[in-house]
């Protein structure tokens, strides 16, 4: 090490930290191609969610009866559906519904869930018990039934589905947060912090949150996949997206009766669903490996 390094500027140190981070990420991705695949798929879907409408060659709702049920061709990459709409354009435009739904549902679910869970864990006693029983109640309610009841009351729409899914997902985060709170409550550093008079908020922010973050991140990434599948499943039953929204689950419903001779109408939206969820699951797995040193040790 020559003398120049001894006088390295603040910027240089930061740059090197960034470079190291990038290098280790790249090395990590290269080591396991599955993770790379996951990341790329997720990026692709996010891009589609934002730019899908513009990238689509036709309008996803443009009806053209003359060209109904055309097979895949250079003019219609994924063929046309039963009223002549271009399936490729609809698939591209459909990405935003899935991403948007997952984002909204998980944001609310995580916020509410963690709030309730942390409160239950730290408060303990009667409050804690009551909150956990409330959580149990929501856990016990069959998700599908609830989704349908909401749809029947508020009308069938993605909004109803979002409400129903949020109600089903938050208890899991509450449980997780409570578990974290319980286990960390008595850790030395937390007790120490309390002794020195740190406010609850500070403890949460500096001690609890960083410990919870890895688990949370992994769980959310995996749950995005499930949320997307749930949305599609409910739309397939007719409860979520309504015509003419090009949501993937709804498209599979519409294409179902044409499977035999016009398989492309239902197949491509399903493929898009599969690839999207696969991407998120691979990403989640990769994150888990990356963030949990214990497990990483086991993979030589």
């Amino acid at each position, binding site marked *: 090490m020559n003398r120049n390094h001894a006088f390295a500027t603040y910027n240089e140190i930061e740059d090197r930290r960034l470079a190291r981070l990038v290098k280790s990420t790249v090395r990590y991705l290269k080591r396991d191609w599955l993770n790379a695949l996951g990341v790329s798929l997720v990026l692709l879907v996010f891009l589609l969610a934002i730019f899908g409408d513009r990238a689509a060659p036709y309008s996803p709702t443009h009806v053209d009866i003359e060209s109904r049920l055309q097979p895949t061709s250079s003019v219609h990459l994924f063929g046309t559906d039963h009223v002549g709409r271009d399936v490729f354009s609809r698939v591209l435009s459909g990405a935003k519904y899935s991403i948007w739904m997952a984002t909204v549902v998980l944001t609310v679910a995580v916020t509410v869930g963690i709030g309730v869970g942390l409160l239950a864990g730290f408060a303990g006693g009667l409050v804690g018990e009551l909150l956990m*029983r409330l959580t149990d109640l929501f856990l*016990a309610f069959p998700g599908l039934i609830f989704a349908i009841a909401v749809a029947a009351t508020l009308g069938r729409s993605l909004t109803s589905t979002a409400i129903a899914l949020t109600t089903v997902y938050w208890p899991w985060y509450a449980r997780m947060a409570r578990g974290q709170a319980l286990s960390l409550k008595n850790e030395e550093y937390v007790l120490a912090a309390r002794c020195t008079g740190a406010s609850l908020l500070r403890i949460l922010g500096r001690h609890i949150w960083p410990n919870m973050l890895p688990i949370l991140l992994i769980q959310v990434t995996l749950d995005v996949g499930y949320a997307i599948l749930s949305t*599609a499943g409910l739309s*397939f039953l007719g409860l979520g997206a309504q015509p003419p929204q090009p949501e993937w689950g709804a498209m599979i419903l519409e294409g179902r009766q044409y499977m035999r001779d016009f398989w492309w109408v239902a197949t491509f*939206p399903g493929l898009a669903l599969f690839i999207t969820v*696969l991407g998120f*699951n691979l990403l989640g797995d990769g994150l888990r490996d990356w963030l949990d040193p214990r497990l990483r040790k086991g993979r030589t």
Partner: protein
Amino acid sequence: MSRFLIQRIPLTIVVLWVLTVITFTLSHIIPTDPARLMAGPKASPATLERIRHRYRLDRPLLEQYATYVTRLFQGDLGRSMVSRRPVAQDLKEFFPATVELVLLAMTIAVVGGLSVGVLTAVYRGGLMDHLGRLFSVAGLSMPAFWLGLLVQLLVYYRLGWLPFGERISTDLSAFNHPTGLFTVDAILAGRLDAFVDVVKHLIMPATVLSLEPLAVIARLTRASMLEVMLQDYIRTARAKGLREQVVLARHALKNALLPTVTMIGMQIGWALGGSVLVEVIFNWPGVGRYAAKSILSADHSAVMAITLLIAATYLVANMVVDVLYVTLDPRISY
């Protein structure tokens, strides 16, 4: 332990009670008029009044709720508007169908999942591992209803190997069904032709339904095995000179199985609810399809009954498992 029970049982009952209130309320906010449904168009207003009175639909909500709960205790789950029969009778007919489907699906999932899990753990890092993990992740990511359609397209429409759905061919269904599980009943009745037919009908839906639990079990088994294989006692076993298979089977696998078994329990519960989409695709006459149809036809009694049934099963099963958990591990306190 007993303190735990005293806490848990009343809580479970409270939860169930709240459920009845919720389902009852929801189904009465829905604007479909059941009297109109029963009478059809062109019925006179007087007739509609008569129907409403007969079914006590003109009573105040609270009274209707009280009647509802009383009937529940008598085992009367109401009448389905769609099938025109008591819901309890419908459920009795459809529940075994779902049970049979889920049993086979879970068997496939457990056997397949354990195999894939063990193999990928043992051959970690190799091609087998990568393929196995890719397969597991794919299984988790697959929309079951889409896969079902594709499988139907291939196996039924194009190849004609298996029937498109339902439980049995129409003309073979006329024999006694004491248990409701067609496979068992066919054997009991000595009908080999019917047995083969039933199995053929079961294969596609059970396989499609098994995919997700299979993937979950495989992944969990793999991770669990990997953890266990790093333990000291495994090294000891190997140092003692035991053959690798013995090490794996007797020591590693047995211990690795525990979390998997926990997961299997949860998976069974979810598969019961998760069968909805698979049953719809394959026109399987089970509780899942019944639920979907009832809800989509605004058949309130059926919807409420199914909700309660599923929730109750889940709650009770969970409570039992919890009790045993607490009994066996004194470290855990609720």
